[in-house]
């Protein structure tokens, strides 16, 4: 026990049986239930859990900034030897900032837009450290430099909107640390950031914390971040800590069945798996307090009678402490190594047809975001065009899953919208089985072809009309095709579809708000299938979901693809997810494709420097304390993309030629990449192929007939017909 608990003398924060409740008209809801943990000076404690587990609430209750309606029901919070729970306004204010700093998730909304960043830091320093304004200004510049802002003296006078997301998060870090607190609560500090920037912020936090022996409470849902910098980890499930222990033990030798399941649900780079091992169901919503049984028991494969009778206490089990009656037995059975069911051979999937199903040829989409003419006349700014997609070519063979990966703003979602006809391209074309679907001129063949394309959207909360019943939503594609329900065909089919995606017929009569995010995504999938598509476009279908639910949805999609022989275009920012679902992966950067390869090839042996960078930025769960190679710099604005190779501004191998000439795709050992360094042999190309040949994944020049010109330009989107 003592090996896990912090030794008393160096303990900074001690939380003892803390309970937080929301008062509602139907009674109190217990959101945090008797949570106990402690943090030593200079220690990094990770707190993980799915959304709704209460991890953010713990963070805000420590500094007395809980959302309205929430209050501490019982328990104590001892900080540096003094009880701080329920401290009044002024006393608590003195703790905040000066003793406990906080970092919030979204750098875009955390900074006051109307004050310069320098003033915000300087103001905090002046108030907290009671120094003169001149001194505060001086220290603020120092802090800007410390968090890695170039030219801090000049950036002092910049407003937040003049910074990129990553830079803003650096400013937020400076603000949280500038009053030199002993503890920093970081609430999902990297969630809103791109994977390459995440590594930079994590590194920054680690360094600054170590420098001043600052303790860190890192709240996150991301096991990768946990694996990277934490010392100990607490796992939360509906308001209770279900397991707590040293990070390596939690990750590799978890004892609680929930932690075990959670670790299994995470798709990983490395070997390809046929299916993810999934936990059934979803985390329950809050209930009237306190729990009379183990909250995890309904989903638990090891539930026994006792689990339903009382909630288990946190007891030592194996190398950690777990709140489970069977912790010892479960933990022994599962080690992180043997998590996968049947490591399938990648080649085992049915051989795809030779003929391409979807052909995308030199597709371009530019958005004119120029200010009005009159503004351009009087201000420096000229026309500005966002080159969201700039000459992308690829094709997908029937029955294949083609995935596009890249950071935000790389144009991957725009491609999804172009291929589905929701957006008109400004150049190039896309064709389905030889029929052009973009640009769309509205003739009957095109209409018919586009009907074969359906889409699953990212946000489960906005993709279903909240005023329609689920049954009506799923029936809409059928009705849109003029199917009538005279013989109850539609009703029958709706029930069929509901069952296919794991819901019941009764669910058809309910409204979307009655469902969780994962269930809504199932409904969304059922609606897409109701249109009997040949091509299913999925735009980040699981990025809004928790990992355990993500595993269910990914498995479901894989099953459905096999059963319906669907062709899929899968858009994602998550390399591990892509590795799991895709047959072929295209890597995008600033509107262009830089590499196309089979996932095994791509992630084991990336060719393009950008692919390599993306791969290296993914935290590795199997290596404890793995340090990601942080990539320098931010993604440049798509308004002014660099000439030549788009990646040259961040590429360690950039040459004069890269700065001037746009590279073209060539084959290198079974993968395709567009890179001058590869072409010139400045990067070693392994002779051996990891998998079989990848047939040329893009159309030959002139393979498609000239695209039909649309009769009239859609007034829906402001699209510039440029080039």
């Amino acid at each position, binding site marked *: 026990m003592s090996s896990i608990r912090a030794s008393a003398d160096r303990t900074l924060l001690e939380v003892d049986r803390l309970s937080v409740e929301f008062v509602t008209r139907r009674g109190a809801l217990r959101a945090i239930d008797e949570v106990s943990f402690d943090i030593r000076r200079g220690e990094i404690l990770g707190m993980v859990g799915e959304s709704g587990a209460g991890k953010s609430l713990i963070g805000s209750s420590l*500094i007395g*900034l809980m959302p309205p309606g929430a209050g501490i029901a019982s328990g104590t919070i001892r900080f540096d030897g003094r009880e701080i729970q329920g401290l009044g*306004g002024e006393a608590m*204010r*003195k*703790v*905040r*900032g*000066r003793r406990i*700093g*906080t970092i*919030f998730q*979204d750098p875009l*909304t*955390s*900074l*006051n*837009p*109307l*004050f310069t960043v320098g003033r915000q830091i300087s*103001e*905090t320093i002046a*108030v*907290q450290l009671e120094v003169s304004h001149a001194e505060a200004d001086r220290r603020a510049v120092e802090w800007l430099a410390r968090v890695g802002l170039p030219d801090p003296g000049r950036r002092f006078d910049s*407003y937040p*909107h*003049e910074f*990129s997301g990553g830079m803003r998060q650096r400013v*937020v870090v400076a*603000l*949280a640390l500038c*009053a030199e607190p002993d503890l920093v609560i970081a609430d999902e500090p990297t969630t809103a950031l791109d994977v390459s920037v995440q590594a930079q912020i994590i590194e920054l936090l680690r360094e600054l914390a170590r420098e001043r022996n600052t303790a860190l409470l890192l709240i996150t849902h991301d096991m990768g971040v946990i694996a990277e910098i934490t010392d100990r980890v607490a796992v939360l499930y509906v308001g209770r800590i279900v397991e707590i222990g040293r990070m390596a033990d939690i990750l590799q030798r978890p004892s609680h069945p929930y932690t075990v399941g959670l670790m299994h649900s995470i798709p990983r780079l490395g070997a390809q798996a046929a299916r993810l091992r999934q936990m059934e169901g979803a985390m329950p919503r809050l209930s009237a307090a306190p729990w009379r049984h183990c909250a995890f028991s309904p989903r638990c494969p090891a539930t026994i009678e006792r689990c339903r009778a009382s909630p288990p206490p946190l007891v030592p089990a194996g190398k950690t402490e777990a709140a489970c009656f069977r912790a010892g037995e479960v933990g022994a059975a599962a080690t992180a190594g043997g998590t996968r069911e049947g490591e399938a051979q990648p080649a085992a999937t049915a051989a795809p047809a030779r003929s391409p199903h979807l052909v995308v040829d030199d597709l371009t989409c530019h958005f004119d*975001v120029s*200010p*009005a003419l*009159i*503004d*351009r*006349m*009087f*201000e420096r*700014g000229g026309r*500005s065009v*966002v080159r969201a997609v700039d000459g992308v070519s690829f094709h997908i063979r029937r029955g294949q899953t083609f995935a596009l990966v890249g950071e935000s703003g790389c144009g991957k979602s725009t491609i999804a919208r172009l291929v589905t006809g929701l957006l008109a391209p400004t150049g190039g074309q896309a064709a389905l089985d030889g029929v052009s679907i973009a640009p769309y001129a509205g003739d009957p063949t095109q209409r018919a072809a586009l009907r074969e394309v359906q889409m699953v959207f990212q946000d489960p909360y906005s993709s279903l009309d909240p005023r329609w019943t689920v049954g009506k939503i799923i029936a809409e594609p059928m009705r849109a095709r003029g199917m009538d329900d005279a013989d109850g065909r539609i009703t029958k089919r709706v029930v069929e579809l509901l069952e296919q995606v794991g819901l019941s017929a009764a669910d058809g009569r309910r409204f979307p708000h009655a469902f969780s995010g994962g269930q809504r995504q199932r409904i969304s999938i059922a609606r897409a299938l109701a249109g009997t598509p040949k091509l299913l476009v999925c735009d980040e279908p699981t990025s809004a979901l928790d990992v355990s639910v993500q595993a269910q949805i990914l498995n479901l999609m894989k099953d459905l693809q096999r059963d319906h022989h669907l062709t899929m275009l899968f858009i994602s920012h998550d390399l591990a997810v892509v590795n799991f679902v895709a047959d072929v992966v295209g890597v995008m950067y600033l509107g262009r494709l830089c590499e196309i390869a089979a996932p095994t090839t791509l992630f084991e042996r990336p060719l393009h420097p950008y692919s390599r960078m993306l791969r290296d930025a993914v935290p590795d769960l199997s290596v404890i304390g793995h340090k990601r190679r942080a990539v320098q710099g931010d993604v440049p*604005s*798509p*308004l002014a993309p660099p000439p030549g190779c788009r990646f040259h501004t961040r590429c360690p191998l950039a040459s004069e030629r890269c700065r001037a000439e746009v590279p073209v795709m060539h084959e290198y050992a079974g993968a395709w990449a567009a890179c001058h360094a590869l072409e010139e042999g400045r990067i070693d190309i392994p002779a051996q192929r990891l998998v079989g040949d990848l047939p040329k994944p893009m159309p030959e020049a002139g393979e498609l007939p000239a695209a039909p010109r649309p009769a009239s330009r859609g007034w829906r989107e402001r699209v510039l017909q440029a080039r």
Partner: protein
Amino acid sequence: MVGVFLRRLAQSILVVLIVALIAFCLFQFVGDPVHNMLGQDATPQQQAELRQRLGLDQPTIVQFARFIANFAQGDLGLSYRMGRPVSQLIAERLPATIELSLVSGLFAVVFGIWMGVAAAVAPDSPLSRLYMTISLVGTSLPPFFVGILLIIVFAVTLGWLPSFGRGEVVQIGFWSTGLLTLSGLKALILPSITLGLFQLTLIMRLVRSQMLEVLRSDYIKFARARGLPEPIVNYRHALKNTLVPIITITGLQLGSIIAFSIITETVFQWPGMGLLFIQAVGFADIPIIASYLLLVSMLFVGINLACDLLYHYVDPRLLDRTVAAASR
């Protein structure tokens, strides 16, 4: 910034031109000025002469152009009813309306913002509840009825304040002011409250809801988490962000104060433009109606223009729009 200004200016000019067209159409198609000016008994010859003198025999476009040109030179025509130049009548009445509007505008803005902020910062305090009650009553009271109630209480029953007129005025150049005499100031109190109350409640409600919205934002939560004292959080960080949308709406409200002064001036027999206008409406005295409309719309548009510029000054994000567009 220049671009924004020019576009706004162009839009303002368009608005004024449209109002001018409406005013002109009033002249053209509503009633017959010749008939109005000469009365029933004029001979056809007299009518034709006057028609020529007024330029009514020329093409409509020319007449419109001349209407604009005349207006620009301050020639607003003759009042049908009083036979005097409208410009003179308005010049006499303008100071009364401007002073009333400014005082009540100030009253509305100062108290509106103050009460709105107070109600947002401590939403459950008794004072905040009182303010919300005032605002509810304020929005539900027809403006003329406020005047009547005030007159009954303070003029008829208590006899403290005058119930009509401007009191003694002092002439400074062409401007007659009531701000320099005690009776003038006393006469200003009831009409200003009457006129300002409705705007006050609107501004207060707006400030409150905006402020509540801002207080819920992440950057305020973050400011609190940094341990900044409540006054700095509320009055520096939150209030400045609240101001941005408020400026525009306040501009609109100030503009409508001038329009609403018609009612107040009627209740208090205040010798301003509004009273002149409503009397003119009763007699279909088109030149006065048209000039009033045009003048009020210009004032209104001017205030809005000023607010727009202020808005861009307060919010740095609006200055470099391209950056904003890129960081979307």
